Structures are given as structure tokens and as C-alpha cells.
């Protein structure tokens, strides 16, 4: 085992939240005490048996874990290569992996005595998962969402409202996820005493990238056990889509020391990397500082963040979790992209061959599987994270297929 990998779990992050040169705590002074308090609470409760027991119970009885690992035999045969296994995060309560994290952070919020929860959301899955846990706790919930995303994920906006959350459309900047994050941070600065900020991905200042990762590694821990049990061996490769990177790190992290397992993170390639209209900072960006951490960003030569494009709202983000930046630099994971069109094709393919309608985000991981699987042999295993279901994307897909949803009535 290479030296860097042998010590990986001990070294990253360090006690200041650094993943090599990435990560850290780049926030305004008003929030510093709040992130230290959160770190202290998290470090205390993560090893607290009572906290763990409550979380395990919620994940089992409320979320429905463990999520199945499904051998997609039809699709594997069709692609004519590796055996493809799908980790079914789409079957979780609320329809995506996001809830694994909101359950954990909500339990922390409760123990820290916070009376108000805020969140940012892109596709709306994290907003729904946050509104869900807030409804259960019976506390106030405010979700910031880019005005453009409010349009393209209208169903999730209504779900959040049904759950009792206030959804605030953000009109500044590119009116997508990054602007929602800015606005949530501004809210947090203003209401720092009573408010818990549930960040939805492995971004933000320390301890978020570590904490959200830990909550999401349930995906990889389960998948590792499941594949060993059903196939008797480790997979040859893992694939997951990357918005901020939480479902991907959740799958990858428990496999990092298994060096025979290749890892592929799939970014939103939009209209194609060469067009500049994409959301692929790891493939085509450079290091910088945004939203509390140092990581790869999509930016111009003067350090201004540039607008992203992806058909999938959940991938439409110019940054990425700092741990992925490290995994890229040390060469432990590979980062690739697929275009909007390729993702849509995979969306339809999986739907027709396996009877599973995936989220557009997850369809990016599936699209890369259609490229990778044929280069592998039938005795090899490709494990793909199906991070969420496609219900929320009906409008988008129908419109792209030239259908007006309203006409179908």
C-alpha cells in the first residue's frame, strides 16, 4: 500500500480541517465561534453511544436503511461488460442520499438547543430532507434556493412548503446553488445565536466537510459489506456523481484503503467542457477559496467565480468538497465529466431496461458507467451510486423531450 494511502484515515482532515492544502475555515469573524461550537459538539456526540443509537434507529426505521444493493442484470447485459450493481439511495425516505446527513445534523441541532434551522438547496432534495427533519423536530425551517432552481424544481418547492418550511428564492448572482449558499451564510451570520445551518454537501468551513462525510459514509460502509456478501469480493470500480461531492465521498471513503478499487467521480459536463458551459471544477477548474474552504473552483483569471451550467440543478455548483480536491491531487480518485445529453440518454436507458427512474444527478454517474462497463469483463464489478430518484425531474425531462407536461392531463 502506498504510504499516503496507508495513513489517509489518520491524516485527513488535520485538526484545523485541512485536507492537505484544501479545506480549512475561511469565514467571517462573526461565524468563527459558531463553527468552533459545532466542531466541539460534533466531536463530543459522534462517539456518544446514545447519539449513535438514536441515529441508527432513525436511519433504520425512518429512512429505511440499509438501502439495497441491486444487481442490474439487464443493463449489465445490454452494456456487455462489467456486472453493474446499483446502490439504491433512491429508495431512502425523501428520495435521495441527502437525508442521511440531515438526520445526523438535526440530532446535533436538537442537542445544541437550536430553535431554528436553515439550509441551502439546489435540486431541492437537500431542502426537502431538511424540511422533513425540521417538521419532525417541530422547529422553524428556512430554505434558500436559487430563483432559477425554484423554477426548474417546482415540485420540490411545493414539498418543502407542505412540510412547513419557508422557501426563499435567491435572486442574486447566477440564481443557483452557489447564491443560495451565500444567502444561507448571510442568514447564519445574522441569526447565529439560535440558528443551526444544515449544509447539504461536503463543502463549507470545517467541520462540515468532515461531518457531512461521516454521516454519508453509511453508503460506502453498507455497500462494501453488501458486495462482499453477494459477490464474495470487492468491486473493481466505483462511480458516483459530484455536485458538492457528498454522495460520492460517502461511497468512496470506506474504500480508500482498498487500492484495487478504482474510483470515478462524475461532474456535470453541461454542453461540453470545451464550450465553457459546464459545472466541472475538478476537470476544468483551479484551486481557490469559496464558501469557507480552499478547493477547486470554476473561476476567471482574476479570481471571480464564473457561472456554471448543468441540466441537473444538484450538480450546478462552481466548487466541490475539499476532500475530492485532495483525492484528485494524490491520484486516488479519477474525476471525469459527462454532458447533459449523455446523462439524459442514461436516464432513459435505465428507466427502460431496469424500470428504475433515476435523478438527473445520478444519471451522470450512470452515463459514465455506460462508457466504462464495456471496457471491462463480465467477471468484473462496477458499483454505481444511484444517489436519488427522478420524480423531481419529470418536468425537466418532459420539456427536454419536447413535451409540455400540462398537455398530458
Amino acid at each position, binding site marked *: 500500500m502506498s504510504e499516503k494511502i496507508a495513513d489517509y484515515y489518520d491524516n485527513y482532515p488535520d485538526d*484545523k480541517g485541512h485536507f492537505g492544502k484544501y479545506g*480549512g*475555515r*475561511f*469565514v*467571517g*469573524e*462573526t*461565524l*468563527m*465561534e*459558531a463553527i468552533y461550537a459545532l466542531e466541539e459538539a460534533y466531536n463530543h456526540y459522534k462517539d456518544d453511544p446514545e447519539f449513535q443509537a438514536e441515529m441508527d434507529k432513525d436511519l433504520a426505521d425512518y429512512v429505511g436503511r440499509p438501502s439495497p444493493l441491486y444487481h442490474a442484470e439487464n443493463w449489465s447485459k445490454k452494456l456487455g461488460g462489467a456486472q453493474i450493481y446499483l446502490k439504491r439511495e433512491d429508495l431512502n425516505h425523501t428520495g435521495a442520499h441527502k437525508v442521511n446527513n440531515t438526520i445526523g445534523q438535526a440530532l446535533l441541532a436538537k442537542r445544541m438547543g437550536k430553535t431554528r434551522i436553515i439550509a441551502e438547496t439546489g435540486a431541492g432534495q437537500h431542502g426537502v430532507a431538511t424540511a422533513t427533519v425540521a417538521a419532525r423536530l417541530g422547529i422553524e425551517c428556512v430554505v434558500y434556493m436559487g430563483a432559477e432552481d425554484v423554477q426548474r424544481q417546482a415540485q420540490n418547492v411545493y414539498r418543502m412548503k407542505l412540510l412547513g418550511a419557508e422557501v426563499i428564492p435567491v435572486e*442574486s*448572482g447566477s440564481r443557483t446553488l*452557489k*447564491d443560495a449558499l*451565500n444567502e444561507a*451564510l*448571510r442568514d447564519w*451570520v*445574522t*441569526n*447565529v*445565536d439560535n440558528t443551526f445551518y444544515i449544509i447539504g454537501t461536503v463543502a463549507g468551513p470545517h467541520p462540515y466537510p468532515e461531518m457531512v462525510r461521516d454521516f454519508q459514509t453509511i453508503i460506502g460502509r453498507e455497500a462494501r459489506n453488501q458486495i462482499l456478501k453477494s459477490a464474495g469480493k470487492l468491486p473493481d470500480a466505483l462511480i458516483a456523481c459530484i455536485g458538492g461531492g457528498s454522495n460520492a465521498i460517502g461511497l468512496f471513503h470506506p474504500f480508500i484503503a482498498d487500492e484495487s478499487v478504482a474510483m470515478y467521480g462524475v461532474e456535470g459536463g453541461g454542453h461540453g467542457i470545451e464550450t465553457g458551459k459546464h459545472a466541472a471544477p475538478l476537470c476544468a477548474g*483551479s*484551486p*481557490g*477559496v*469559496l*464558501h*469557507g474552504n*480552499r478547493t477547486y*473552483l470554476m*473561476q476567471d*483569471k*482574476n*479570481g*471571480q*467565480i*464564473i457561472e456554471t451550467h448543468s441540466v441537473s440543478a444538484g450538480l450546478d455548483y462552481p466548487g466541490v468538497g475539499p476532500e475530492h480536491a485532495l483525492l484528485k491531487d494524490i491520484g486516488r480518485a479519477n474525476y471525469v465529466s459527462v454532458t447533459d445529453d449523455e446523462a439524459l440518454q442514461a436516464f432513459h436507458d435505465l428507466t427502460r431496461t431496469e424500470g428504475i427512474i433515476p435523478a438527473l444527478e445520478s444519471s451522470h454517474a450512470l452515463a459514465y458507467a455506460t462508457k466504462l462497463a464495456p471496457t471491462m469483463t463480465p467477471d468484473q464489478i462496477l458499483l454505481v451510486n444511484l444517489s436519488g430518484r427522478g420524480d423531481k425531474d419529470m418536468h425537466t425531462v418532459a420539456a427536454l423531450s419536447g413535451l409540455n407536461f400540462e398537455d398530458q392531463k
Partner: protein
Amino acid sequence: MSRISQCFEKLKADGQTALISYITAGDPEPWVTVPMLHALVDAGANILELGVPFSDPMSDGPVIQKACERALKNNVSIHNVLDMVRQFRERDTTTPIVLMGYTNPLEVMGYETFAQKAQEVGVDGVLTVDLPPEESEQFLPIMDKHKIDTIFLVAPTTTQERMAYIAEHAKGFIYYVSIKGVTGTAVLDVTEVENKTLQLKQITDLPIGVGFGIRNGQSAAAVSKIADAVVVGSTLVRCIEEHAENPEALPAAVAAILAEMRHAINASDMA
């Protein structure tokens, strides 16, 4: 001694409170920034804060967010901002200038390249709102080498222990953020400001500037009784927004606002 420290020493000797103005560079148009800076000095500003526009100003309220958007529409970069300082220094070699903004533009330019250029054009201090001392290990020695004062924020949430930690790393002055919130959104609580400023004074000999919630002569006068410097930002930027279509009028318009603050502070200094 740095230009900032000299400025505070002189004002102290004269029994005066410093008045610090903030405007965003390149807002609403690049050509009017330097004339505005001169007009602000003529109206009584002792130190100039010049905002470096950033696409994602997370610590700023809507007023300064829009200022950044206007400046970025004009493609104002950190290089342009440094050029503006150079131009300002052709006529004014004494008024200290502090660049205020976010980490990323400096990070992308490179700390060393930035510091060298900033020193060369006559920048005196830098305040990066999202770069706490914890993340400044590389930044501080480079700024120090180029004689640029590193100004840090202290907030209502900052503990006494942390104040000492910040003061250890700060140079020039300490900037007390007088509200919990982003710029330009609330009115400060004078009692709270007084308590925190007194706490800070026990810890450090650095001058204390107070900003974020000062709207008018009255709040400026109240703060001048407590602090060494009063910072006025969003009020000026709001005026710039109002005159965005008519930038020729701006130097006089911002000067009028600042003159009112100066007047109120002087009256309170004499009392």
C-alpha cells in the same frame, strides 16, 4: 511606523476620532473612483477603505452586493484596483489606504505578487473578511515583509480569549463589527459596542475602529465617544447606487454625506 499608525498617533495628539470611509472600487464606473477618494479626503476622511469587488460577497448585505455587481459589470479586477491606488497616490501621499475584500482574488493573484505590487503602488493595509488568523499562516509574513498592515475583524460573538488571539496577529487597527449580521442591514447597539470596545482596550494598544451599523451623524457621534475610528460604508454605497446613472455628481454627493459625519464627530470630540 506605518502610515496607518502615524495617522492614528496624530489624531490622538489632536484629540480627534478618525473617520474611515468605504467605497467599492469601480462602482458605478471605474473613472469616478479616484475622484471620489479625493473628495472623501477633502470632506474629512482620515483613512480610505477601498473595496475589491468579488462575485460572492458572503459577508455583505444587498447594498454592497449590488456595488460588487456594478463594478464587476465593468470588469474591475484586483489589477485595476491597484492601478486606482497608484493614480490616487499621484496627488495624495499621506492618506492611508486599506484594501478590503475577500480572499480569493488575492489567492489567485498570489500573495507575494499581490503584496509586492500593493506596496509599490502605496497600499497601507489589507482586510480580508474571510481570512481569519487561523488561515493566515502564509499570508501574514508576506504582508509583513511588504509593510502592509493586516487588519482583522472582531465581532459581537468573539470571546475575550479569541480577541487576544486576533490582537496578536493584527496590525494598524482592529475593526470591530458592531452588529451580528451582514453590512448595511441593522443599526448598532451603542451599549454593546461600548462593552466590547472596553474589553478590547484591555487587551490591545491598537486603535479600535467600529463599523457596519453607522448610518448618520448621530450614530457616528455616539461611536466616536467610544472608539478611535468610525467606519462609514453602506451609507456611502447607497448614495452611489442612487447616482449610478449620473456618476459626475458622485464626488460631491459622497463628500456631503461624509462632511455631515465629520461635523457630528468633531462636535462630539469637542464636547
